[in-house]
């Protein structure tokens, strides 16, 4: 299968930090995969995603998305990815429709097409009756769903999600996960981070567990579970590999 995302020897050190946040990571994500990047707090997941999205310049290494160098061909690579940031990235005083209308227009989507997409996604995510409500009046789950919709309007080939189901109720989480499965079936590559290991185990086709900026294990959920005798689920393997020490 063709490669969607290629990361080679990626290193990132934040200004004045003693330790590197990402320490020589190399991996390939193939087209059509649902790739789970898992790890405890501070492991380097968000830093890796920020570099992939073009927010951060890596200290070292090379990243390409669909053959486009992220640093050199930033605009081209941005066109093929949709990023759902960990934090809600919307205008709270605008309504759901106004937010989607603005971000969709910024992608250059035509008015009619955009209206169709907005109505389609609002219906799909159960927000059809709240489209004219300001985002500041939304619940956490509603904001998460809208945050996801805003990243889908330009039909990205790769969807990158940083903890998309954090702080949402079971219903919203279920809806999001089901939607991601459907989207993947239609050909979208998904890179996803989460602390919900059970969710990752059932959703992902490939997983990498990362700690202290390094990949400590990679493979399909079955391969990872099979590689650790005496462990029958991802969470127990995760704790074994990363330890029980609390992280900041």
């Amino acid at each position, binding site marked *: 299968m063709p490669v969607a995302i290629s990361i080679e020897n990626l290193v990132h050190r934040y200004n004045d930090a003693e330790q590197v946040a990402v320490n020589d990571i190399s991996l390939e994500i193939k087209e059509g995969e649902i790739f789970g990047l898992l790890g405890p707090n501070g492991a380097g997941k968000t830093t890796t995603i920020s570099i992939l999205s073009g927010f951060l310049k890596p200290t070292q290494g090379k990243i390409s998305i669909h053959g486009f160098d992220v640093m050199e061909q930033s*605009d081209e690579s941005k066109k093929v990815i949709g990023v759902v940031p960990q934090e809600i990235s919307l*205008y709270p005083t605008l309504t759901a429709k106004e937010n989607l209308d*603005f971000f969709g227009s910024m992608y250059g989507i035509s008015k009619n097409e955009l209206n169709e997409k907005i109505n389609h996604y609002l219906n799909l995510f159960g927000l059809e009756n709240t489209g004219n409500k300001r985002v500041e009046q939304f619940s956490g789950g509603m904001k998460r769903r809208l945050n996801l919709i805003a990243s889908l309007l330009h039909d990205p080939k790769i969807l990158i999600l940083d903890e998309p189901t954090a702080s949402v109720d079971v219903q919203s989480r279920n809806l999001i996960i089901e939607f991601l499965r459907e989207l993947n079936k239609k050909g979208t590559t998904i890179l996803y981070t989460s602390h919900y290991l059970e969710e990752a185990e059932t959703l992902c086709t490939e997983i990498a567990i990362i700690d202290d900026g390094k990949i400590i294990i990679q493979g399909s959920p079955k391969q990872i579970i099979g590689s650790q005798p005496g462990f029958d689920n991802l969470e127990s393997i995760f704790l074994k590999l990363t330890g029980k020490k609390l992280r900041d």
Partner: protein
Amino acid sequence: MRFLASIKKECLILLRDKAGLAILFIMPLFLITIMSLIQDAPFKDYKENKIPVLYVNNDNDSLGNIIEKGLRNSGIFSVITEIDGKATTAENTKQAVANGDFRLGIIIPEGATKTMNKSVENRVAKMLAGFGMGEKDSTLLDYARSDSEKQSIEIIILFDPAAKIAFRSSVSSALDKFITRTEMETMLRIFSQKLGEASGIKEQAVIETRPLITLKEIQANESKVAELLTNSVQHNVPAWAIFAMFYIVIPLASSMIKEREEGSALRLLLIPGSHMISLYGKISIYVAVCLIQFFMMMLVGVYILPLLGLTAFEIGTNFIALLLMVFTCALAATGYGFMVGSVFSSHHQAMTFGSVSVVILAAIGGVLVPVYVMPGIMQSLSVVSPLSWALNGLNNVFLRQTNFAGIVPDVLKLSGFFVVMILLSVKFNQMKKYK
């Protein structure tokens, strides 16, 4: 389409920010009205308001009466000869001025006219004796030879201790003018009289005492509106309108920091080319806000302030130059807001720096008090303030009725300031992005 979407988004956000709208539109209206009313009296001090002066005429003769008449006719003073229904005396006048009830008191001593006449007669006699005339009047000559000229008249001027030096010297010089004139007239009268006596002519000559040299004050610019500089409305309306325009640093910087905090700025960074389009949209909206602000202030100056007893604001006739000046001023103000919003990471830092810096730039730029009344060092400093460039350019349009070329230096300075501010903010944003 992307640009229009950006404009629409900025409009919606701004219209829903009630506190921001109040800062942008209501606060400047109050500022202009209040400052024009407060500064109206000081501006009128030497122009329309007469200075009340307690007058004690212990002379009750021609000198005391001439000075009183001169004060009354000067148009500067209003002469008061009674305190609480009682005639002014040296004692109650001193007390009233010392208490600060009046800023000025004048006491003409008893016998001032007689002393003056005697002194003048002596001088004339001395003069005539010098020409070998009038020597027959030996008594007078003897008197003249005596040391009697040391007698002098002391007119007392009482000042409120809080009165400023400029006020004291202007009053003293006005009073000195009346006294010199009276003294001169008396001398001419006696001289003519004595000369007539010495030459045996009984009929007294008519003496013309009208001044030979007079001063005529005219403005360097013959325009009618050139005289308007001295009223508070003409200073305060453009000055505080400029201040209000620069005060958009608060809502603008706040909106930029909010976008970063809310994450919407992050999402824009993910969309190719959208960051710059969003920047242009924001600039357009805030420049439009500044223009609306300014013309609202002008309307208040023209229509509302006269209802409060103030002079109506004169807007001048050079509308294209005015529009260009206001537009570049709006650009400069918006650029400054962008720079503050880009440099600072928290609302608190941006609000504190933004508001304090605008007040300082306004103070040195001549918004609070005109630059020409500032000390020399502050006048030199004022050239660094963009508010000073804006005010100078607008005064060129409103008061000096300058042609288009007259505003070019200020337009260039303000445009340059805008470009520098935007470049700095882009640089700071890039530094933040990759931090």
